[in-house]
């Protein structure tokens, strides 16, 4: 584990840049991670997905599957991939300051 300055303050991240301590997260950090990962601007639709991922993780200890994300977040799968072309679940987790999803679906 290393610490890195994404935006103030310093946060703990794993080798792939996922926050290891979700409590260190804030919206400025989210915007900085998004910009670093090819999402230039976080729209309301992006935020809807990011918040859904984060809330679910904090509530249950697991990030939702892409299936659950598409069914329950209010953003359908097609749009998820338009918002996060390089992988919605992975990227929304990263931006939302939670660990990388471990599931296969």
């Amino acid at each position, binding site marked *: 584990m290393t610490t890195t300055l994404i935006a103030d303050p310093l946060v703990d991240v794993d080798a792939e840049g996922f926050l290891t301590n979700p409590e260190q997260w804030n919206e400025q950090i989210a915007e900085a991670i998004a910009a670093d990962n090819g999402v230039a601007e976080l729209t309301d639709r992006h935020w809807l997905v990011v918040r859904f991922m984060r809330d679910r993780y904090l509530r249950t200890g697991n990030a939702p599957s*892409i299936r659950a994300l598409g069914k329950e977040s209010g953003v359908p*799968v097609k749009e998820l*991939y338009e918002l996060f*072309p390089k*992988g919605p*679940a992975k990227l929304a987790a990263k931006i939302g300051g939670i660990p990388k999803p471990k599931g296969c679906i």
Partner: protein
Amino acid sequence: MTELLEHTQPLIDEPATIEKVAIVVSKGSLEGIYPALILANGARMEGIEADLFFTFFGLDAIRRDRYGKIKVATVGNPGMHMATWLGAMPGFSALATWMMKRQMEKIDIPPIPEFIELVHDSGVHLFACKASVDMFGLTSDDFVPQVEDIISVGRFYEQAAGGQIIFT
């Protein structure tokens, strides 16, 4: 000579990544189809491009009249760890399928029709193999709307160019 050799070395030692996969589905059983769908979906989740090419009995996974009725092979499947006569009992394959589906639902793996829709919406391109379609006397009307086209082997290779090919 030394100079020439040096130029063949990569300039930066970046870890190798897969950018694109083409998955060939040749079997029509539950255990033949699911791995392909999971691989295709998993590829998209990692930002990897993915194509699915359905051939032979793999076509059942995209046939309107069959894709909701895919079953586990309980005969000739050593992985089932049971006597062949037992696997051949009427209703046994349906029972094994029902049990497996229930288990999959628990870990959030969708039924095949929903999975086909999911991978399609995720940007996976679905193709049917022309030789198999002709052999079974099928037309595009026999397939679910997520199927993009019926293509020849030649077109499949064109489509798969630059990626890895996986055969299941």
